[in-house]
């Protein structure tokens, strides 16, 4: 038997796949075969490593060399230099932007140093389509322990004691939720995993399902045992084909190994899981809407109570948890509640996964202990703002959250502190913005989303949000008045108080938080008719600064309207009657001569 000497871990997450990671894997296999190394080197397609900015990622084991932005054409070099000669390919290593040194081991990169990976413990380490690799890293140990050593009540007590709260956004204590469902007697109960991640700019749940699907299956079975349910359903977006595929593979492997199905591990406990597909409706992240959608109806929410724990799917007691919540469960069982509740802040235990995106250097998926500050996340892990520009705001919680600003940078983030700052945890999207983002336009962007996604059932959300959007539209076009700003606040208050479900009640948050934190910018739009970021087209125009323009003509060549004219080597001029403000010239000019006025 040949011994495998080197493992090549290649990221197969959606981001890296989009930049040719499949071709990289094929290339590795071809070249290894050509060199006769196919038995000594194993190539594994893993889940997301998190460092999407520098993808595709290739990691070499056992020496932990972390290659970034690998291209299919680099593969030969990695095989010939790294694998055969044992020399690292320096120019593919991560370059520390601070000290300009190459870093070989991911442990020493700013991006990873402050992270603590619990929910993402296996992502990037295992082949998610191979159950043996998952088991070798402790997968299904929790389920084994629960079935052989614990009573259902003990499981609920352990989860309650751990302090785990719902990672879908609202932060309801998971153990308490399970306890409520366990109490209700019924001939059939259901465990539902909410994998309808619809928040724009969030990809945590998808990465977990793609990178470690077994952790979800194991946790759902543990939950089923504790509440007395034998059936599990995963409600997953149809837009996530890779995650669906990996879950299907994982479910069938778990069945084969007797970890799902009848009499699991000889304990007499039966549990099986089916997938249900979402069809693109943000409101289906709300649990009552999700349940209706699974029943084949329009995904409209209903008033609570009755809570799903009493009457849920097919009117049976149902426990709904989010993907990330479930991903924490198995490890809490194996390592114990007391290990978990030492991590994090006083009222928010454990870690949180964030999808860090926007105008930041290190876009990616990160997991940090609760209580980490925004400054640590944005500057130490995120590597600061792109292009050396100034930090302006960070949006958390998606369409239900708000925009925080420089004054919140040192806030230790957990459920409660974010709520107090006028935002919320949400599912974990974190979009960083710099001075090129207009906060009024951002508020409008989120409201457009809410209006599109409002199910239309209750009037505060259906009509109120539409009115707010109209006012914002008016402001971004330069027709707003100070009364409009007051009207926005009034409407927001009414919608918050009277909307039926979580989507409606939180939908004014992006507007309210920008009004609170960026009041000046609203006033500028209304009074001075100016958009300082140059985003609102009606409130800006481009001008060429004759002092800076060298007359190269690059701007005139990209202008789709032929609005720019000028003699060669002489300062050019923009005809504002022709200009459609597409910004192509502004982006093309290397001399900063095209200014936003």
């Amino acid at each position, binding site marked *: 038997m040949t011994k495998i000497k080197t493992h090549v871990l290649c990221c197969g997450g959606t981001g890296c796949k*989009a930049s040719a990671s499949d071709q990289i894997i094929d290339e590795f296999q071809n070249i290894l075969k050509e060199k006769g190394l196919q038995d000594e080197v194993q190539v594994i397609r893993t889940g997301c490593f998190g460092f999407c900015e520098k993808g595709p990622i290739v990691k070499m084991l056992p020496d932990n060399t972390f290659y970034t932005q690998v291209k299919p054409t680099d593969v030969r070099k990695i095989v010939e230099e790294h694998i055969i000669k044992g020399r690292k390919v320096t120019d593919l290593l991560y370059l520390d932007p601070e000290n300009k040194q190459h870093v070989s081991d991911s442990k020493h990169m700013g991006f990873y140093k402050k992270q603590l990976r619990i929910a993402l413990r296996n992502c990037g380490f295992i082949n998610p389509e191979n159950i043996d690799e998952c088991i070798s890293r402790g997968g299904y140990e929790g389920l084994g322990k629960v079935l052989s050593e614990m009573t259902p009540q003990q499981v609920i007590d352990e989860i309650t004691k751990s302090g785990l709260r719902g990672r879908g956004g609202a932060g309801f204590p998971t153990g308490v939720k399970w306890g409520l469902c366990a109490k209700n007697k019924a001939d059939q109960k259901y465990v539902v995993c909410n994998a309808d991640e619809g928040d724009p*700019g969030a990809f945590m749940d998808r990465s977990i399902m793609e990178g470690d699907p077994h952790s979800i299956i194991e946790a759902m079975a543990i939950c089923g045992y504790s509440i007395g349910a034998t059936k599990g359903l995963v409600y997953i977006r149809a837009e996530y084909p890779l995650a669906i595929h990996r879950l299907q593979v994982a479910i069938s492997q778990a069945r084969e190994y007797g970890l799902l199905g009848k009499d699991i591990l000889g304990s007499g406990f039966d549990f099986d899981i089916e997938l249900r*597909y979402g*069809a*693109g*409706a943000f409101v289906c992240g709300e649990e009552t809407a999700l349940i209706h959608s699974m029943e084949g109806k329009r995904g409209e929410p209903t008033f609570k109570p009755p809570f799903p724990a009493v009457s849920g799917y097919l009117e049976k007691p149902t426990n709904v948890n989010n993907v990330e919540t479930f991903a924490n469960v198995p490890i809490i069982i194996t390592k114990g509640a007391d290990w978990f509740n030492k991590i994090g802040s006083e009222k928010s235990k454990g870690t949180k996964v964030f999808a860090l995106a926007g105008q930041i250097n290190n*876009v990616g998926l990160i997991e940090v202990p609760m209580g980490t500050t925004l400054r640590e996340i944005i500057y130490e892990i995120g590597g600061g703002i792109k292009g050396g520009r100034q930090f302006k705001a960070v949006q958390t919680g998606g369409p239900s959250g708000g925009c925080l600003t420089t004054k919140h940078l040192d806030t230790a983030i957990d459920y409660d502190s974010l709520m107090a700052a006028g935002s919320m945890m949400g599912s974990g999207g974190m979009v960083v913005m710099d001075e090129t983002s207009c906060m009024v336009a951002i508020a409008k962007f989120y409201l457009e989303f809410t209006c599109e996604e409002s199910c239309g059932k209750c009037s505060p959300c259906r009509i109120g949000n539409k009115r707010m959007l109209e006012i914002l539209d008016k402001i971004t076009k330069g027709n707003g008045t100070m009364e409009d700003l007051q009207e926005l606040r009034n409407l927001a208050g009414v919608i918050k108080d009277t909307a039926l479900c979580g989507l409606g009640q939180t939908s004014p948050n992006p507007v309210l938080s920008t009004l609170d934190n960026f009041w000046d910018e609203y006033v500028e739009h209304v009074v001075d008719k100016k958009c300082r970021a140059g985003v609102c087209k009606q409130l800006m125009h481009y001008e060429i600064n004759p002092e800076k323009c060298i007359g190269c003509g690059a701007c005139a060549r990209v202008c789709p309207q032929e609005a720019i004219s000028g003699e060669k080597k002489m300062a050019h001029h923009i005809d504002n009657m022709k200009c459609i403000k597409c910004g192509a010239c502004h982006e093309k000019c290397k001399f900063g001569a095209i200014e936003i006025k």
Partner: protein
Amino acid sequence: MANIKISEKNLKTVKEICKSFGNKGGEVINVLHKVQGEFGYLPKEIQEAVAMELNIPVSRVYGIVSFYSFFTMQPKGKYPISVCLGTACYVRGAEKVLDELKRQLKVQVGDTTSDGKFSLNVLRCVGACGLAPVVMIGDKVYGRMTPDKVKDILGEYND
């Protein structure tokens, strides 16, 4: 809406799909996923056929098709283009890319070019935020898009 009569062959396909889900009304979303996968879109006649097979009112089928954004009643172009307007892409300038696509293709969002070659749509987050802004043509993802790259990527589909 395209006024096509459903052919015997298509009706048979619909019937088979419905049967594979036990002709149960509760399975209507799963049935529609399969049917759309088969036909590319869900015109009125197909919805009527589904309603008949599952023994539910057409209004319920239409209610679902119109509620969920994944379902469409418009045929897509040969090369469907989707521009991601998730927050990460938005703050990195996705709207400018969308404007340029609209300009070059001479269509609005939701429309198909007159030759049926391209259709233009927006979506919210494909999860490749590291590559923002992102445009998808078919299954191919184009990352770090700028307005001046639009011409080149469309040029790849000159067949």
